[in-house]
């Protein structure tokens, strides 16, 4: 989605994959008790990836791309490219991987099977990076399916019946989606060859659409349905609430960056960089996508209201929030596109904060129900503050990050001539407030009775309210939520980058 300034052949995209692939391979071979090695490798890999991203941002913003490719079968190459949009997504995954790794190290301290956990955790990030860097549909598909497979052991990690059943549901949905996607990818590849993602749409696809609109629509539908499973668009969302049985860091990663974002990212790629907005619009794909996304936004919020389990409520909230991305991608207005793109990052940052906090409540206080949260704010002020920032951000309160995505989405909806977007966003915001504010209120409310206060005063006071490795990631991401909102005007802020990427779709 960037202006074609220059494309350099380079090994860097491959190295970016290896920063998590190599640690994964070594971690699998480590013994359970080699904690120091495992921690070092995890952090080194995560830091290296962040380092690559930071180093690449200025040249990519200037329009330079790095590209690595390798023949796979005759006529089809595997391609990795760092264009602006891919780097945007890699930046999110690299950053959140780093904090989630720290969180997970603290969370799983002393738990069994950590080598397996962190090995697959790293593979999960490798797959996400691959999805981001994929330069054509086949490469995308390869990593998309890999992500499905390597996430399974993470969801099933605890081995309880619930965990195994949740993981099975997850697999059934995502593999089903993968098969639909595969059908679409093969069909398109046979017809137009292995086309590479191009800002504003691929010419060959546009020609095919002009030539055989019916076939192209069918292909587009297959691709979008395949992506929608991971993006949890109703009615393909059923796996997400059940996958909540995973350990907290996995839920955090799943909801913020890995699986659901892969779906959302894929939808944007297909609509903007494969078909192009005008072609997708002519084929009638956009209104349908927008309608499903709009419905999902409201539906997810309503379902979230009814959940007492904190993680479940967050899960339904994810279903709702993710569809902002799909909705924005389906609207033909630069502001809406930028809103969709920036929401990929903002939602990730906010949701990961909330999940970190949910994990903290569960670990430190043993609380997983919203009804039990009353008064926790007194005992865990920093956690509660982080949760509050995340919640208010989700509602869209200025100057937090959520506002910077909702406002342009609403304006873009008006620009695009789809005024119905506005009531959807308003209703959704009201619902967000309705399911988040009671939680926040409960957190800060004084305890209802003396007994509970006495009980909570029982354990000896620690210097920190929670283990540092769990607490600081939540605080840092909460601070980022605030920072991304306040500093939206900075050249390298997510919003500025999103605006720049969005321009590419309208040339």
């Amino acid at each position, binding site marked *: 989605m960037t202006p074609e300034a220059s494309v350099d052949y380079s090994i860097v995209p491959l190295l970016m994959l290896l920063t998590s692939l190599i640690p994964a391979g070594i971690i699998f071979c480590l013994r359970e008790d080699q904690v120091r090695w495992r921690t070092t490798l995890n952090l080194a890999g995560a830091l290296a990836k962040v380092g690559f991203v930071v180093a690449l941002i200025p040249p990519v913003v200037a329009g330079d791309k790095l590209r690595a490719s390798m023949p*796979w079968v005759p006529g089809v190459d595997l391609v990795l490219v760092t264009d602006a949009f891919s780097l945007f997504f890699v930046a999110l995954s690299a950053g959140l991987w780093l904090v989630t790794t720290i969180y997970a190290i603290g969370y799983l301290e002393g738990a069994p099977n950590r080598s397996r956990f962190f090995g697959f955790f790293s593979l999960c990030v490798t797959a996400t990076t691959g999805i981001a860097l994929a330069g054509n549909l086949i490469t995308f598909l390869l990593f998309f399916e890999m992500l499905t497979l390597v996430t399974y052991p993470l969801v099933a990690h605890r081995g309880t019946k619930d965990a*195994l059943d949740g993981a099975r549901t997850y697999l059934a949905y995502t593999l089903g989606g993968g*098969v639909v996607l595969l059908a679409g990818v093969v069909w398109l590849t046979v017809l137009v060859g292995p086309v590479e993602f191009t800002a504003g749409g691929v010419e060959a696809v546009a020609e095919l659409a002009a030539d055989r609109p019916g076939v192209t629509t069918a292909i587009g539908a297959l691709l979008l349905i395949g992506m929608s499973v991971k993006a949890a668009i109703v009615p393909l969302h059923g796996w997400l609430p059940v996958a909540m049985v995973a350990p907290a860091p996995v839920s955090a990663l799943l909801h913020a960056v890995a699986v659901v974002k892969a779906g959302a990212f894929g939808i944007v790629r297909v609509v903007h960089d494969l078909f192009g907005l005008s072609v997708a619009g002519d084929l009638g794909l956009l209104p349908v996508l927008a309608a499903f996304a709009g419905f999902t936004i409201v539906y997810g919020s309503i379902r979230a209201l009814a959940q007492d389990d904190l993680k479940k409520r967050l899960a339904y909230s994810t279903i709702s929030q993710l569809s902002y991305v799909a909705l924005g991608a389906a609207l033909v207005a630069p502001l809406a596109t930028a809103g969709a793109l920036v929401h990929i990052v903002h939602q990730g940052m906010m949701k990961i904060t909330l999940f970190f906090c949910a994990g903290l409540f569960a670990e430190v206080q043993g609380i997983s129900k919203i009804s039990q949260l009353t008064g926790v704010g007194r005992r865990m002020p920093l956690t509660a503050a982080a949760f509050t920032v995340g919640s208010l951000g989700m509602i869209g309160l200025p100057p937090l990050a959520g506002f910077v995505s909702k406002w342009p989405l609403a304006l873009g909806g008006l620009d695009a001539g789809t005024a119905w977007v506005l009531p959807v966003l308003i209703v959704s915001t009201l619902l967000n407030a309705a399911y988040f504010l009671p939680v926040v209120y409960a957190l800060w409310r004084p305890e209802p009775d003396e007994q509970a206060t006495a009980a909570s005063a029982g354990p000896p006071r620690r210097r920190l309210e929670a283990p540092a490795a769990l607490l600081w990631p939540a605080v840092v991401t909460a601070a980022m939520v605030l920072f991304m909102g306040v500093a939206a005007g900075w050249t390298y802020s997510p919003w500025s980058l999103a605006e720049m990427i969005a321009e590419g779709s309208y040339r």
Partner: protein
Amino acid sequence: MNYPALLPALVLLPLLLAAVTALVPRGSRRTAGAAAASTTGALGIGVVALIGGGSWELALAGWEAPLGITLRADGTSTAFLALVAVVGTAVTVYAAAEPSLAGGPDFWPLWLVLWAGLNGVVVAGDLFTIYVMLELVTIAAVALVALGGRSAASPALRYLFVGVVGSLLFLLAVALVYAETGTLDLPQATAALEPGPVLTSILALTLLGMGTKMALFPLHAWLPVAHPAAPAAVSAVLSALVIKAGVIVLWRIWFGIADGTAAVQVLGVAAGIAGAVAVFWGGAMALRSSRLKPIVAYSTVAQVGYFAIVLSLADGSAAGWSGGVILVLAHGLAKAAMFLAAGTLAFAYGTDRLSRLHGAISHTPMTVAALAIAGISLAGLPPTFGFVAKWQLLVATIEQGEWWWIGVLLLGGLLTFGYTAAMVRATFNRPGDDEVPAPYPVPAILAVVPFILAIASVAFGVFSAGLVDLLAEDPTARGRP
């Protein structure tokens, strides 16, 4: 480089070594057998490396066809030879590590005879030699199944009957070819055969005969009994390699002489339908099974269905042909890994019942990983070798406009993944399992061998370009004129 004189060695060396191994006292037969089999494997790999992308041909003792015996190795043969050598070597290492998983010292001479037969089927250039080599394979395979002990006797006998019936049907086809053309050399016979009822009968007989040998639905009932009854190392060879002998013979003859007449098309469609039913039937039965080895065996029944579908898909399509051959290779690697891994788990837990395997993922993670990766490759999911095959076949489906196979290919993959997931799921720790040790400690090599085969499936899945190119240039890939 061109050393066609090595071709007969592929058959004669293992036969000779088999005789030597049989004469060695039982006590040291394992060592001798392992050395002999490793030599055979090294020879196979060496020949494959020397052939590279070329093709060799040798008339034995200078007697040209139709009088003498001609041995040929083209790109496809090379691919098969490579599969036999790689899986054969892996199985050799595995069997040498734990005699109880190979069925005792008698395994070694039989295994060498089988290996000779497999190499022979691949390089034989005329129908009679193919027939003889197939017989060698069948007899050795039956004897190997019988090594599974008392409970294997009846499956082995059944396997023998089925194998002989298959051979007889094929022999009849060979006789028809000779009666019609006066030659048994495959290219000469192909050129001389005229379209007509005889040609159709030859194809039908070959299809039936090889269908029996490769357990194509509805002639499959012997396989889910025979393969699990055999020792683990033998099961792996049977599923990964012996089945493929039938497949390659069927394909060679089919793509050599099939013409576009209506009767032949009906045959092709019938084979395809049988294949499609096999995919679903085998998958469903695997899902219903509650023991590892029967699951893997039913999985083979399902995968054989694809080999029959290839008869329709590879017809004049380079993508279909390379997809078919890669499917054979991918299935060979993955199925060997899967059976060996299943054998290791059965060894460690004293049973292959799924309900008894919980905790295996922590006790022997490499074995479970091998099982899972092999299943992913069989299911045709990226980034594995099986996916390359599935991709090529899907491309062929769409290129040829035979879109109805898409559903079979995709849903069959999901079924495959379903029973793989069921196997892996059974190995997860139940809460509190972590302190319980595996009943029997697993020698590292029993976990490493299947794991390496599984990793090879991934490596070939990513770096497949050269191989696909090699196969796409094969004469058969051009299809019928």
